[in-house]
């Protein structure tokens, strides 16, 4: 198939300074998307190293590999980094790169706001890690935060958290919150106002649809987080009393405010993962997506219901039976639209001509692990069960099942799937399969076995433990699994770099896919499409390749 644009990319060599200047000042959505992804991958590695240190500390009982203070800082930084500076930016990066291409637009709706959002988020991440230079470090300003990623009051008050570590935490989250809202605003406006001719909302690919829902969640979830950070900062700098229990303030109010953000946040992270699976599974099954309207409806339903489940993090706080019952019910209801999605993916695969390329392997891993994560989620959403396991390692295992087993797996699938579009080179399949199988083995060793010490009563955030608790064997397995995952990720990073230099040429459309991003050349020129495309169905490239039997005849 011929690319839309025939002009060849200029191969002239330029001075490194001018290339760096171009990247720093760019307003091109593709470059900003790539910078988001690079920034997030860097923090993914940093957060991963922190996780490894935590696991090494817990591998054997009575371990003093780390000091308790360093341990506290590590789990706080691990959680904060992974959610705010790895998870959200990487998903926004993919959104930035793909949404305009998939809807046939030349750029985002507000290119300058896009650059601003990226840089302010990046600055938030740098600020968070700059805190390490304080206190006992280079500058006497403070040191890394050690209050846990949800920073419960009154631990964050001046009395219990002196110095500036908590200020670094709240300011960096506030900055990244502004960046997230800016990017989400841009994505919504791009999808609603920049679609190419003929792309009605019912012909919109599922990826932009899910980014639309995700962005909606960003507005109503990240706003409260920013509000809570303002309050916390007022408490710490101006002596206000929002979360000061000595002056009648409430610690539970912080929990509510944090989880009003914190639970939808899980869906902000998982909906883009669904979006990747929605694009990859049909292409590698050689079938159109089963139940497109049901998929859209289920996503919107998840978006709405996720706003009313936050207090399932607070069953043990004393809300009373009425409150608990409401949040048990609301949480369990989420499994209905999620179930619809799983059935639709299975129905798409069913009877398809399946090709087990690396992106598809990761999506199958995603499907299976997401199902298991959903099952432990239903267990935890039952208040009596939750009372038993609240704040134990069972909870940690459950949410890592979602974050790693579902989101990270779908994300790796997305990397292998869109890498040829971004670089023009295919990623190495053999290394990719090594990456996949090592990841599967490491993941299941780590997070399957992590449930067990949780059931045996091991609390989360514990620094070390006695030998007679029956946790040590399990923690050893978990630690070994963590090391295997680290090897898998190194495999992936090596593949990313070496395929860029030595990979096979991918051509415009290596997967024989159906959405518009594969209609332009790889990598796409700065204006994306030389002629703005017009579409007549959900699979424009199918129509193009099969003019005798186009989709538009059936829709």
């Amino acid at each position, binding site marked *: 198939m011929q690319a839309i644009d025939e002009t060849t990319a200029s191969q002239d060599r330029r001075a490194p300074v001018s290339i760096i200047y171009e990247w720093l000042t760019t307003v091109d959505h593709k470059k900003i998307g790539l910078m988001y992804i690079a920034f997030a991958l860097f923090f993914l590695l940093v957060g991963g190293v922190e996780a490894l240190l935590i696991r090494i500390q817990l591998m054997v009982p009575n371990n003093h590999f780390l000091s308790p203070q360093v341990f506290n800082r590590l789990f706080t930084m691990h959680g904060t980094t992974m959610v705010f500076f790895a998870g959200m930016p990487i998903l926004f990066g993919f959104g930035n790169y793909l949404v305009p291409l998939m809807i046939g637009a030349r750029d985002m709706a507000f290119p300058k706001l896009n650059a601003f959002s990226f840089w302010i988020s990046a600055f938030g991440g740098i600020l968070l890690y700059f805190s390490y230079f304080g206190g006992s470090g280079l500058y006497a300003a403070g040191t890394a935060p050690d209050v846990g990623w949800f920073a419960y009051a009154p631990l964050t008050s001046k009395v219990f958290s002196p110095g500036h570590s908590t200020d670094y935490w709240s300011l960096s989250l506030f900055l990244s919150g502004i960046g997230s809202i800016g990017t989400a605003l841009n994505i919504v406006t791009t999808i609603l106002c*920049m679609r190419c001719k003929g792309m009605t909302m019912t012909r919109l690919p599922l990826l932009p649809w899910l980014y639309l829902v995700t962005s909606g969640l960003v507005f109503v979830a990240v*706003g409260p987080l*920013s*509000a809570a950070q303002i309050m916390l900062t007022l408490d710490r700098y101006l*002596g206000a009393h929002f979360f000061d229990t000595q002056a009648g303030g409430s610690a539970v109010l912080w929990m509510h405010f944090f989880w009003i953000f914190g639970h939808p946040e899980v869906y902000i992270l998982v909906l883009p993962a669904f979006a990747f699976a929605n694009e990859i599974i049909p292409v590698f099954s050689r079938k159109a997506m089963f139940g497109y309207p049901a998929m859209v409806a289920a996503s919107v339903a998840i978006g709405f219901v996720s706003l009313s489940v936050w207090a399932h993090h607070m069953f043990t706080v004393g809300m009373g039976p009425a409150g608990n019952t409401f949040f048990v019910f609301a949480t369990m209801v989420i499994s209905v639209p999620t179930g619809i999605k799983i059935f639709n993916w299975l129905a798409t695969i069913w009877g398809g001509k399946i090709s087990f390329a690396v992106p598809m392997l990761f999506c199958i891993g995603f499907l299976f692990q997401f199902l298991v994560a959903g099952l432990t989620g239903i267990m935890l959403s039952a208040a009596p069960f939750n009372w038993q396991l609240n704040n134990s390692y069972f909870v940690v295992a459950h949410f890592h099942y979602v974050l790693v087993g579902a989101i990270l797996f779908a994300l790796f699938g997305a990397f292998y799937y869109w890498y040829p579009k971004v670089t023009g080179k295919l990623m190495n399949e053999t290394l990719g399969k090594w990456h996949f199988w090592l990841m599967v083995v490491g993941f299941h060793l780590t997070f399957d076995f992590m449930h067990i010490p949780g059931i045996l009563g091991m609390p989360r955030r514990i620094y070390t433990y006695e030998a007679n608790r029956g946790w040590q064997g399990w923690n050893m397995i978990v630690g070994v699994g963590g090391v295997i995952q680290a090897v898998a990720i190194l495999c992936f990073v090596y593949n990313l770099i070496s395929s860029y230099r030595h990979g096979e040429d991918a051509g415009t459309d290596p997967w024989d896919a159906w959405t518009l991003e594969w209609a332009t050349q790889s990598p796409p020129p700065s204006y994306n499409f030389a002629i703005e495309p017009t579409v007549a169905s959900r699979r424009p490239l199918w129509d193009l390749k099969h003019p005798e039997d*186009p989709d538009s005849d059936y829709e």
Partner: protein
Amino acid sequence: MSTPVSGVPINQSEIEWRLPYRGTIGMGCLILAESAVFIIFVVAYVYYLGKSLNGPTPSQVLELPILGTICLLSSSVTAHLAVSALRKGNLRSCTANLAGTVLLGLIFLCTTAREWYHLIHDEHLTIKTNLFGTTYYALVGLHATHVVIGLVLLFTAFVFALAGRVKEEHLEKLDVLSIYWHFVDAVWVVVFLVVYVLGR
């Protein structure tokens, strides 16, 4: 039937293809996010009503800001008039209405400043005093911040209008600005009800 032209199918029957204006959608998103922020501050205010451990209480120190409220709400009307004047091409009326909006907004800000001066200087109520002080200054201050931002934007628009640089093609932009200003006013209605009517 579709014909492949330069890589992508073109629909032969030319359809009317209209998309919403991006400024309006963007402002709608911003308002959604800002509403979520304000809701959190309002919830904190209501939650802490009557929970202060020491005085003064709202009923002892707060007075109804009638003048400020009237000015702010009328400024919404003048903002609307400015947009409709521009739509009719009446630049002189547009400029005058923008000036009126800025003036009314400034009067509102002055009444807030006077109220804060009175509370801090005479009643010794600061953000540190008690929960009422904390939530009151945070909520009203957040709203005042939005008023200041709106006034800066409106003043800029006024200066451009005075210099004759505002044309009919800027109608959509001015409309987006007026939507923001209406939102700030609507928030004030909520703040007024919660802080000065219910809370007192």
